[in-house]
């Protein structure tokens, strides 16, 4: 998901003709930090998305819609040509999400018990 957002931000920035340095400066962060966002290496908060949207003079929706339009489920192993690195991370992310969904259920049951 981060890589999708990052790629979208990158293309919006390039279409505005801005460099990474220019955007990073407006965000008050280092170019390296900003580059990590475009590479999809870091989680990006909604607040940052709004800031970037303002700098690029677009609506935040134009950034986030990239994620919504992307098919939710992708095959674990794509045919050659696509990088598998993302897939491995996605696999782990799904695994963690699965356990966390269980955690939510586990805690919600106990929450109810506690209230009685």
């Amino acid at each position, binding site marked *: 998901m*981060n890589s999708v957002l990052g790629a979208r931000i990158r293309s919006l920035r390039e279409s505005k003709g801005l460099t990474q340095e220019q955007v990073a400066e407006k965000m008050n962060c*280092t170019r*390296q*930090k900003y580059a*990590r966002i475009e590479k999809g*290496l*870091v*989680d990006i*908060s909604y607040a940052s998305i709004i800031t970037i949207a303002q700098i690029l003079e677009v609506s935040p929706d134009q950034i986030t819609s990239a994620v919504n339009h992307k098919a939710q489920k992708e095959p674990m192993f794509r045919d050659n040509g696509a990088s*598998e*690195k993302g897939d*491995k*991370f996605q*696999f*782990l992310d799904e*695994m*963690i999400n*699965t*356990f*966390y*969904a*269980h*955690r939510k*259920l*586990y805690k919600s*049951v106990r929450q109810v018990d506690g209230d009685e």
Partner: protein
Amino acid sequence: MNKNRQLAIEKIADTVRAECKVTGYGFQNIFEAAEKLGYQVIRYPIGKDEFLGFAMIKEGERIVFSNSSLILSREIFSIAHELGHQKLHLSEQGLTLIKDDDFTNRDEYEVEANYFAASLMMPREKVDKFIRQELNDKSSDKWNGLDIARIQTAFNVSYDMALIRLKALGKLSESQVHYLKNEKGEYTATKLLKAISGNVDLCRSTEAKKVPAEYLEWVISNYNEKLIPRKSLQAALSYVDLDVEDIGGLSEEKDVEDDSVFAKIGT
């Protein structure tokens, strides 16, 4: 990274060692130590050419992940590096994920996390102590691969990391590192470790598939409380190569409707 930042990172690393009650040279088991510190440790063999690890904050919990397809000494370093990201860079309000493709990346956060890992695994004063007491103060120009293997075993680090750290601490010159690397070319690190009955496991990958025990507890408890179908239990267990049959003391299977709240999870 300036001197002040270095010192600050060293202090944090010292605190972590103290919290983990590391009294010897290296960590007995850094994976367990990280769990005792309150981190959720996940290990998974995702392939030798894949990324090395990541640090994540999720719903207020802190997760460190390491790729167990790498040799153990590198995996240990990955966990130390990810702990560095957790201590230095991640926060609930800011960054919640840092993924590491390789540790040679020169960006500021990577340099800092590497410095943290090095300070955690091989603190300056412990290295000094080892050289004095275990190597009898042998001058470093007389060191050979076997001495490095002894350092490796004491601190649980890879041959290369030992050299990098010794050079950073000013114990070895560039040319000595070069010579010792050749030494490694002549024998492999494994042979060197065998020769001194050192920890040979450091040179092998464990291929461990490990999630925190509480993860499995949540799943099993949800099944026993009849909140999820057997299928969901099986799906979650299969992540760590377990079958429902492997788990004792489960409640009897009862039909849970698949269109229950939970049907979308783990199927």
